[in-house]
């Protein structure tokens, strides 16, 4: 993927500029090479964009106090998802695994006891993300946790553009005029959680809270959202944040 920097883009923040600047500044070689690959031209139609769905299971919701316990990554495009290309890692959290989180994602104390540290997967992970636009459901979580985990181990953070299927869903179901009317009329808001969002597109129900399953679920959800509400010509800059 050859990065072409479209300086005319009015999207804030200007991701190509940001990545180019980081590539110049960083002293960490792995990050430098990642940033040097840049991101997509903001005008790239989403139908042509190489994408990668990513999902973390964590010990909690606070990136500064909690840790990643598993990572699922699924490279895809709007025309194909190849599950065989997906990757899944169980990681050892540096901080205590609480009983609540065990109950939530079914990764047990014993499972993580001998698991590797996040540091060991950085190369593989960055290799899968480079040159692809990352797709997540609720970017706040993946973005903060990835940034924090990289910062702890490499001394610098890692930010990149992401498409958030949850915020796309929120735009349609929470911020539209119709949604506001509904709320004004006292009707409950549409749920924008992964499972409920998928139901609106008649996607099948999967067993939730497994990072790889959820990354596949997110990839399928984006395919459905684009077909129903956008089209393959929509520029990525209209979707990423």
């Amino acid at each position, binding site marked *: 993927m050859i990065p072409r920097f479209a300086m005319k883009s009015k999207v804030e923040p200007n991701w190509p500029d940001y990545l180019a600047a980081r590539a110049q500044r960083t002293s960490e070689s792995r990050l430098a090479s990642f940033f040097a690959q840049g991101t997509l031209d903001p005008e790239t139609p989403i139908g042509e964009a190489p994408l990668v769905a990513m999902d973390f299971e964590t010990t909690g919701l606070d990136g500064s106090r909690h840790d990643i316990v598993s990572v699922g990554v699924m490279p895809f495009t709007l025309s194909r998802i190849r*599950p065989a290309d997906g990757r899944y890692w169980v990681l050892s959290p540096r901080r205590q695994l609480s009983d609540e989180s065990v109950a939530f994602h079914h990764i047990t104390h014993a499972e993580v006891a001998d698991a590797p540290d996040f540091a060991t997967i950085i190369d593989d992970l960055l290799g899968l993300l480079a040159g692809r636009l990352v797709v997540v459901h609720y970017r706040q979580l993946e973005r903060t946790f990835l940034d924090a985990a990289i910062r702890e181990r490499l001394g610098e953070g890692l930010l990149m553009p992401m498409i958030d299927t949850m915020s796309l869903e929120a735009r349609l179901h929470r911020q539209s005029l119709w949604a506001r009317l509904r709320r004004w009329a006292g009707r409950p808001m549409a749920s924008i959680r992964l499972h409920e969002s998928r139901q609106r597109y008649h996607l099948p129900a*999967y067993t939730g809270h497994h990072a790889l*399953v959820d990354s596949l679920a997110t990839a399928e959800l984006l395919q459905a959202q684009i077909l129903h509400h956008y089209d393959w010509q929509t520029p990525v800059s209209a979707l990423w944040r």
Partner: protein
Amino acid sequence: MNVEQLDIRGHLAQFAPFDNLPDALLDRIAGEVEIRYFQAGSELLVKDQTIESLWYIRSGAVEMYQRSGRLFNRLSEGDIFGYSDLLRSNRRVRYPISAIEDTLIYFIPGDVFEAVCEEDDDFAEFVETGGQRLKVTVEQQRDDSGLMTTRVRKLINRQPQMVEAATSLQQAAQQMRDANATCVLVIDVTETQSAYTFTGPDGRHWQLNGILTDRDFCTRVLAEGKSSQTPVGEVMSRKVIVIQSDESVYEAMLSMLRNQVHHLPVLHRRQPVGVLHLSDIVRHETHSSLFLVNNIFVQNSPEQLARLSPEVRTGFVRMVADGANSEMVCRALATIGRAFTQRLIELAEHELGPAPVPYCFMVLGSMAREEPTINADQDNALVIDDSYDPARHGKYFEALATFVCDGLAACGYPYCKGDIMATNPRWRQPLQVWKAYFTEWMDEPNGERLLHSSIFFDLASVHGEAPMVEVLQDLIADLAPQRPIFLAALARNAKNRTPPLGFFRQFVMDQDGEHRKSINLKRRGTAPLTDLVRVHALACGSKAQNSFARLDDIAETKLLADGVTERLRYAFEFMSIVRIRHQADAIEQGAEPDNSVDPENIDSRERHHLKDAFEAISNAQKFLSFRYIMPTKQGAASAGDNARGRR
């Protein structure tokens, strides 16, 4: 990566032709699947485009069109398409396909498809013969769902719940509750890999060490006073009976019976992939025997229905081979017989127009008792509303009866030799005439009327105004207990046919016709038994029709000594199943099924049981004459009161 977690394999494994693939091939396909979402209304395949993959519908539905634009086929979850185009040398699409619902597709790459066709003959045959549901015959469908051929994994539809031995009982129970599961498997990490371990998603070696079922929570936890914080490992059953996902459902059923368990963990190699519960098998079996019934209701002419009749026999043989008991077999046959009758009536009404006055089509005898065998003939009659005017409506009901009875004969239910059919004007009458018949038969019994009672007093509605038949059932149940002369005469008749046992318990053979040295199990066994059960049932005012149900009602009264109804039930089941097996054997050997069994062909243990069964009937017959004494003039009323009073 571990594709199994994505449940692609599990989904494929539930549907033909993947359901019968060996695990290795299924693994390979699941590992190569690609996925794409299509919106409702979009075109999936356009005519003449090249096709590179086999398309599998993970969810949603599509339609396939012929060249003329006519709808050709409609496919949904678990169906495949594109295989016939893939098999052509130019791989061009013949029939365009579009999504009628939002659809998620699994693509199986063409080279993988070819490799699987190459390696698995059944798979190849399925796709080469256009094995889509559209063209699959009843025969194949039923074979597909047979207990012998269906693999266990087809019945598994979700991941097993697993906990470690250190987990507290409460946590395990919560997990079971949340997953709506009836058991948990107990697994633990082991240091070394062995023949008993499997590799978890974390790359470590795990071993299945125990199982804890909801029943265990009663017997091993509450009854033993264990605290909710006790580790699961302390109370679990350590003896885990498992089955491989490749095994047949029949094998699973045997294993459950042999080991007295209701939960069977299913392993794919050594990895637990699900838990089979006894109820899963029952559900599966019911479904497959109902298949023929579904098929009956979509046929549009008596000729089409008649074409299904060989299926009844093969289905019967399969059920017997699968180890069904007589009640299951007979109920299935009754359901099928009713379905044929109902469909024929619907077709008749379609041809003749709606009935001018309400009516009810009823079946009599073994069909009404839900105890028909494979060679049962038809017994039926019409009850018509009292507004019936023979001059104006007679022709309609005559035509209806002829249509249905002829149709039944074509479908393998021979005409009744005694002419007990709706085509007989005598048995095509308004309700009030029926009431008069029945009352007369009970008030003034004679030879013919008793014979009729033993057929007509087993009655059930099949189509139309069921309450009309209920009125007649009520009438019988109300009157019969108060008609001691009738009961006594019926009891005497019930003793006409005696079990074939000599004084020293040796069999007494019939010497009739070509069946030299044989015992007619119907005439000498099940028929006398149903006759005597009917007498008791009528005496106690039971409205049940099925002999087992009648025995239940009789057991509620003090009519028979303790344990007698149990012995009769056992005798009935045993004689019925011997007769059924005999008939299934005959069909398999290409012979006409009959009721005559040569005791020499029965093994010695069964022969012994058969003698016990006959003896039970013989004793019960003796009791009849003791119980239902032909009353003298003064005694008539009190004998009747007696029968009623003991309910």
